[in-house]
């Protein structure tokens, strides 16, 4: 079969197609986990009351005033989880993630406040919540470690070192540093941040077991663990169906087909539903197993905030050495991140922080030592940016302090240090792609009128000072990059698979494990598949992520959905096209006549990627629909299903033993600019204007990409100026949306978003990942702007009014 000329067109990619999920969302009919029809029990969690200690008992208080009795409740503790049931010999009570150290339920010793100790279930949600407060967890207190900055070396559980040198040993580095014309030091701190998705975590679990294992009138109570094979099924708000799947297989000692995990629409995730849902699914599953009834567990806001993960607090100590003209010669960074009580995802967060720590700059001599430490707070976990916002903040704030030291324009200092094509990043990755960082920087500066604005702000401040007005204006910049997809060999390890299949209706159905968390995966996958095949969007559907139905295409994290999984969608779609051709379901007669107009918006002659041939639009759509229907009717998966598995793009490898090599296949590059006004009376900061300029490869859907960037920027403005986790003795004291303050529409200006497009050869139509990028730049841009406005050199987040006023007072004192 040989079609004369591949058409290689795109009719959907690159256009602002509305998201298919939007219609139900604006009508209020889109179902989230708490909206699903449900008959069963409601679960609640009993948690530890202090930061560290041992549980010595549980006291179940009187419920008579609630009209209830403890006999109506199911209660699950760690005792219900048999220690030896795990296939691999480890305690199944320990969550299967990177390290198995975090229990689903505390057996004895506990490491943080609000750690789950027991689960209760009851038919009434109101009763179960009231009853949960009547259970006293009796504990024996142990000393807690609460400050990660002062924690001893024994608290360190992961260390990463990076060296880049012309010479060999540490002495050479010290000598190089000593020889620099200018040295600047600084310490930079960032705080925990709550993801604050508007839909709290929620999960429904069901157990399918043999009738013999069900309670009956003769045998009202049954052992928790069934005697015959059983199945645990959960559905809920989550980002990573196969993470939950793995955790449940391990907890319940079940084979892969013994567990089913299905994602509902998620009302936001931002990383907060990456690892925690495994625990919640385990809890709901345990209650369902104990009761043999469906169990729903929906956290209220307070529980979600105090008990689940947040962004890692960090401290970075930076020393840089420069030539007299500002060129970076040496960078030394000592970074610490607070992992909280358990390992969870921290090693990877730390890794991502390290890889982004020196930004898009060429530096011959680099020393980075990064440590993750344990404290007795709930584990810190995934949150958009995943370690990079912390280190990018530190380095970009530092760069402005260097510029001040040198009397250089901050943009000029950055320009002199930007890496160029063929240049090398701190982790010894040579940039092979065509990049033009200087041009992109200039484009952003011009778009914001950097010089003009800086001058006007300075004139405004001068005028204000003369007339006794307390307001000050400033303009700040951050230059940074963000690697897309999993780090280094991570994608090899995941070996993601995607399936597309023909349906009886002549449609194409895309089967991935990617969950729709607001980012637009349904829309983007549809566009990619439609253009790869040559279909209209109405002919493409995206299957619900359900481990019974979709292959493991990896987690919905790390800015990998569009770039990595989207690429697999394109490849799987083309695979199916080939199968339809080989089965004779598509032939010469079905080919689109040469020269036939494809439509106004269509771009012709562009291959989806270096690994996809791109015959999309070679066939008439009605012929494709007919072929798809016929393939589905054949019942033969060989004809009706297209598959793709991840293959590493050509190029070097990553060596995580020495932290050298190709850390990411590609990076998105960005320049963010902010103008602020600081009220000198109150220290309040108003963001007057913000411009986010980024190169992200091909923009697949401008409307969605714009929304991703703007949303990320505003979340980062919140982190920079408003949001702070206030801890006392390991307890989050502002665990509600009244006192944990995220931005409203009135707290932010419209965000100007600009894209440069330098297509990536191995992304679908050149797309790169963008989800996390916008989290990295705003904080340093804003604090740099505050410094420009006021001369206040804040190096810690958030730049709260309290910090600004305290700095004013300290400066007055110093005078």
């Amino acid at each position: 079969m040989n079609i004369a000329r591949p058409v290689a067109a795109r009719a959907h990619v690159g256009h602002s197609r509305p998201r298919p999920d939007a219609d139900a969302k604006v009508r209020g009919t889109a179902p989230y986990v708490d909206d699903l029809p449900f008959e069963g029990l409601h679960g609640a969690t009993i948690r530890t009351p202090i930061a560290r200690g041992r549980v010595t008992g549980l006291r179940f208080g009187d419920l008579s005033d609630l009209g209830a009795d403890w006999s109506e409740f199911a209660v699950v503790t760690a005792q219900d989880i048999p220690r030896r049931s795990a296939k691999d010999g480890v305690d199944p009570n320990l969550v299967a993630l990177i390290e198995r150290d975090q229990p689903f339920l505390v057996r004895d010793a506990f490491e943080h406040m609000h750690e789950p100790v027991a689960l209760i279930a009851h038919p009434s949600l109101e009763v179960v919540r009231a009853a949960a407060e009547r259970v006293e967890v009796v504990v024996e207190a142990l000393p807690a470690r609460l400050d990660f900055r002062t924690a001893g070396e024994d608290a360190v559980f992961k260390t990463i070192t990076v060296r880049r040198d012309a010479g060999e040993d540490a002495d050479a580095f010290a000598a190089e540093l000593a020889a620099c014309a200018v040295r600047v030091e600084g310490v930079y701190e960032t705080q925990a941040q709550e993801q604050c998705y508007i839909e709290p975590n929620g999960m429904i679990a069901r157990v399918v077991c043999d009738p013999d294992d069900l309670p009956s009138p003769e045998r009202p109570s049954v052992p928790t663990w069934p005697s015959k094979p059983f199945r645990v099924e959960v559905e809920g708000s989550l980002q990573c169906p196969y993470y939950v799947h793995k955790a449940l297989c391990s907890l319940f000692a079940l084979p892969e087909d013994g567990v089913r995990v299905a994602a509902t629409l998620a009302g936001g995730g931002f990383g907060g539903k990456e690892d925690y849902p495994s625990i919640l699914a385990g809890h709901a599953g345990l209650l369902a197993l104990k009761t043999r009834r469906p169990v729903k567990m929906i956290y209220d806001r307070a529980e979600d905030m105090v008990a689940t993960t947040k962004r890692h607090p960090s401290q970075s100590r930076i020393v840089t050495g420069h030539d007299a003209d500002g060129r970076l010669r040496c960078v030394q960074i000592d970074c610490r991140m607070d992992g909280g009580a358990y390992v969870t995802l921290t090693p990877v967060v730390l890794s991502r922080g390290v890889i982004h720590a020196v930004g898009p700059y060429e530096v011959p001599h680099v020393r980075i030592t990064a440590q993750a430490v344990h404290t007795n707070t709930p584990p810190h976990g995934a949150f958009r940016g995943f370690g990079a916002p912390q280190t990018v903040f530190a380095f970009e704030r530092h760069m402005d302090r260097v510029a001040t030291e040198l009397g250089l324009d901050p943009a000029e200092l950055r320009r002199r240090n930007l890496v160029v094509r063929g240049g090398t990043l701190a982790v010894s990755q040579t940039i092979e792609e065509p990049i033009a960082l200087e041009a992109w920087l200039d484009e952003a500066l011009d778009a914001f009128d950097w010089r003009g604005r800086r001058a006007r702000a300075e004139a405004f401040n001068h005028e204000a000072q003369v007339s006794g007005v307390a307001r000050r204006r400033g303009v700040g910049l951050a230059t940074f990059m963000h690697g897309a997809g999993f780090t280094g060999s991570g994608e090899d390890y995941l070996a993601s698979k995607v399936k597309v299949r023909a349906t009886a209706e002549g449609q194409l159905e895309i089967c991935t494990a990617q969950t729709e968390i607001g980012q637009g995966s349904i829309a983007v996958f549809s566009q990619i598949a439609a253009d790869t095949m040559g279909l209209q969007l109405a002919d493409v559907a995206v299957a619900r992520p359900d481990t019974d139905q979709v292959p493991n295409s990896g987690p919905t994290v790390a800015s990998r959905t569009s770039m990595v999984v989207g690429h697999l969608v394109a490849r799987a779609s083309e695979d199916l096209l080939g199968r339809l051709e080989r089965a004779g379901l598509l032939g010469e007669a079905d080919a689109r006549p040469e020269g036939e107009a494809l439509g106004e918006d269509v771009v012709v002659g562009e291959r989806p990627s270096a690994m996809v041939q791109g015959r999309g639009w070679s066939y008439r759509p009605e012929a494709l629909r007919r072929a798809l229907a016929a393939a589905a009717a054949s019942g033969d998966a060989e004809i009706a299903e297209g598959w793709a598995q991840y293959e590493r793009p050509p190029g070097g490898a990553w060596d995580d033993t020495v932290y050298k090599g190709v850390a990411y296949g590609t990076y998105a590059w960005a320049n963010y600019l902010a103008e602020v006004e600081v009220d000198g009376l109150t220290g309040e900061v108003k963001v007057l204007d913000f411009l986010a300029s980024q190169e992200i490869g091909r923009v697949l859907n401008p409307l969605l990409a714009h929304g991703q960037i703007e949303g990320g920027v505003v979340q980062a403005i919140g982190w920079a100026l408003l949001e702070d986790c206030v801890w006392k003795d390991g307890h989050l004291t502002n665990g509600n949306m009244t006192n944990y303050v995220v931005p409203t529409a009135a707290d932010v200006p419209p965000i100007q978003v600009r894209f440069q497009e330098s297509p990536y050869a191995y992304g679908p139509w050149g797309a790169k990942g963008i989800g996390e990028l916008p989290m990295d730049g705003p904080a340093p841009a804003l604090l740099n702007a505050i410094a420009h406005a006021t001369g206040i050199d804040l190096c810690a987040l958030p730049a709260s009014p309290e910090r600004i006023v305290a700095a004013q007072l300290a400066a007055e004192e110093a005078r």
Partner: protein
Amino acid sequence: MSGMISQLQASRPTDLDAALALLAEAGDPWRPLAGGTDLLVEAQHGRLQHRRFLDLSGLQGSLGGLRWHADGTLEVGALCTYLQLQRDARVQAEYPALCAMARLVGAAQIQARGTLAGNIENASPAADVAPVLLALGARVRLQSAARGVREVALDDYWTGYRQTVRGQDELIVAVLVPPQPFGPHAQWSRKVGTRSWQAITKVGIAARIGWAEGRIVEARIVAVSMAATPCRVAAIEQALLGCSGEEPDLAARIATAQQSALRPLDDVRSTAAYRATVFGRLVLQAVCETKGAAGDAGKGGSAA
């Protein structure tokens, strides 16, 4: 001990006498429920102190809306919401500080429900509108079945943290705001929260500063989130009397007066140091801006 919503008792009388009769009942007290924007938050957090609730929503006829007395006094019914208040053109003209603050309570959803009476009775040290009422010299009208009607100056209404003079049998039926001797320009308020809306005041001020011939002749300075209740700061008021606002040591005088009178706290929302520093600055700003406004008004300027 946290109860459950299902077990709470509530009544919705449709005339005032019936409501007062319920309040006069012996035993478990009835807590009046107006907009619910504080009460239902307490319920959510399991912090309700009461089990019986007297819903006032059936009393719109007697407690709703606002009226003007012949002497220019504004009478705000206990059920008048922030949204209704700020939409009234005459209130906007005569009590701009009241409208400005009503507009900053929570956001639209809270303003559509919350009431002045509720804000007063809730007695939060971080209240938004009640401090303005205090600065404006407002009185609270209470009514009970047995004792009839009495009026209490807001100065005397709050007796301690979250405590008021209202008897268990009494209901706030109206808030009375007297005509303002120095007009709209003497009114000044500022709320400092972490964000523009949906904010709880970290530190705030409500003030009425009367000027004559370039001197302060009256000062009512109310501090918000600086003590157990919103409170007038007599020491500062004294210090300001007779000042022109140009005194080089005015800031220091305010600071000294403030130090003796206010001991703000560190809490989850802010720090004592921030509150103390910023409050002093806000007093100075109130002085400067009311002086400017008074001057403009005196010149027949455009400020009105």
